[in-house]
């Protein structure tokens, strides 16, 4: 992947440079945390095929995170390394959304979380892939293919669960309601995104948001499920570094080996 062609050196650009870094970290941290969560399913899935599918999605996300962290390090050596970003930051330095740090719960919760997440990125990457910042557009073009597979996979499961048995429908509907408060955070542009939008029109949030809502409505109605009516968003916000308890718990596991041996190479 080529480096960012838009100039971000010089004092005048420090704020936009920081915004770009933060925006990239938001995407990368989302991918890392969700990739980690999905990997917790490995060996415990409802079927072997699904075990393999969830691992695949996990691998895509972890690969995305690694790629973005490396781009950050390439542009600014102060970040140290991709592993330093993943394993040696504290939870209050992570910029991932609250949705991805939510625990796996039952299979319905994992699938609903994936649909909420992948649908957003599907429409975001669609726009980012033609944005003027090449670092973002190059990455988005590649990641979009992966995300569209994730969305198709999770979307198919929504149909099966919604239109499957009474139990699966109830579980799917419960997950839809439970995770809904975390969707708003995805759709509302973060501070970093707002700066990039104002300066370089990287994407149009209202377009992403309306495409997202339309997609969900269509999918859920086909699955005979209901879009939640409540709009109360969670007071937590990962983009503002206000996390739930889940993230620090997740990190304490994920980072334990690396931090026990800070000087080691693996």
């Amino acid at each position, binding site marked *: 992947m080529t480096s960012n062609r838009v100039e971000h050196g010089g004092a005048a650009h420090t704020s936009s440079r920081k915004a770009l870094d933060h925006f990239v970290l938001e995407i990368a941290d989302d991918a890392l945390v969700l990739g980690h969560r999905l990997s917790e399913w490995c060996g415990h899935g409802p079927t072997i095929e699904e075990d*393999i599918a969830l691992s695949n999605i996990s691998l895509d996300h972890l690969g995305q995170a690694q790629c973005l962290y490396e781009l950050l390090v390439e542009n600014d050596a102060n970040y140290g390394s991709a592993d330093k970003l993943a394993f040696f930051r504290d939870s209050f330095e992570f910029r991932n959304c609250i949705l991805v740090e939510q625990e796996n719960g039952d*299979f319905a919760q994992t699938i609903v979380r994936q649909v909420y997440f992948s649908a957003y990125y599907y429409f975001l990457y669609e726009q980012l892939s033609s944005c003027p910042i090449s670092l973002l557009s190059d990455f988005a073009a590649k990641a979009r293919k992966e995300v569209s597979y994730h969305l198709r996979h999770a979307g198919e499961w929504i149909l099966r669960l919604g*239109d499957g048995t009474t*139990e699966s429908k109830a579980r799917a509907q419960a997950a839809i309601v439970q995770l809904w408060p975390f969707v708003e955070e995805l759709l509302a542009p973060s501070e970093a995104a707002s700066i990039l939008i104002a300066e370089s029109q990287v994407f149009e949030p209202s377009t992403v948001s309306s495409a997202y809502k339309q997609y969900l409505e269509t999918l859920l109605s086909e699955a005979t499920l209901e879009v939640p009516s409540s709009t109360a968003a969670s007071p937590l916000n990962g983009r503002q570094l206000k996390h739930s308890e889940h993230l620090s718990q997740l990190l304490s596991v994920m980072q334990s080996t690396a931090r026990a041996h800070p000087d080691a190479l693996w």
Partner: protein
Amino acid sequence: MVEGHFGRTTRIRAMSEEQRTKDFLSRIDAKETIEPKEWMPERYREQLVRMMSQHAHSEIVGMLPEGNWITRAPSLRRKIALIAKVQDEAGHGHYIYSAVETLGVSREEVYRKLLDGSAKYSHIFNYPTTSWADIGMIGWLVDGAAIINQTMLARCSYGPYARAMLRICKEENFHKKQGMEIVSRLCRGTAAQKAMAQESFDRWWWPTLMMFGLPDEKSKNTAELMQFGIKLRSNDELRQRFIDMNVKQAQEFGLTIPDPDLYFDEDSGHWQIGPIPWEEFFEVLKGNGPCNRERLDAKIRAHEEGRWVREAASAFAEKRAKRRAKQ
């Protein structure tokens, strides 16, 4: 082809059981490959179902001890490689279950026997993974042992099993390479990393030697399996190959082999090991290993918790099929 096959079937029907078996064994001796639709002695089928089921279960249960470190892998690269590896093992299990089905037993039936404890899987997966170094040791030693076994099975007399092994071996070689890379890193690393590697090696060395099964004179299945061309080498032969290969490798890593009796026998050109602690092996096989209960419980839990998901999937498939039929 169809006529030829039919012709042989009719001819075989007219033969006595004894004559059929004799013919079958001469095909085995002639290194012919046996395919699913062909006549085979009931014993041959039973032995294959037993062995292939055990093998498939081992792939699936084997995901657990390694999966235990996915969430704590120390770098992104290692984390990604480990998930991919464990995912490969799921694929191996899946593939071998399909191969067992060619013998007329359903995958569900085979899997149920794992869950109710009546089918076995490799005893090695009943040992705990207590440090990151274990991930390296499993790749190097456990996958390494599996490769020796599977390379032989890739030339076994039953076509579907042989083909499955051929495909799987390629991935196992990659797993072994990754495992050795992890061990090599640890052995060249900090004092704590080296200690971690040695501690782990001390725990895995003897159990991996037991993976090849009991000594030839005590193995009740070996003779028959060799007669059927399912096994081409005896347990002790395979074990010796593994020892010769890995004593040298351990020395290159700078690891100490936990066997005070180990020596190189100039006459035979082989490394000779001290007595294998078989009592431990029998205990693990009996279900008294360190993690037997945990492993089975984890698979039972996943199966139970996944039940409603599988039911939803089949209910949906039925509804969809009905809707399509109406259109």
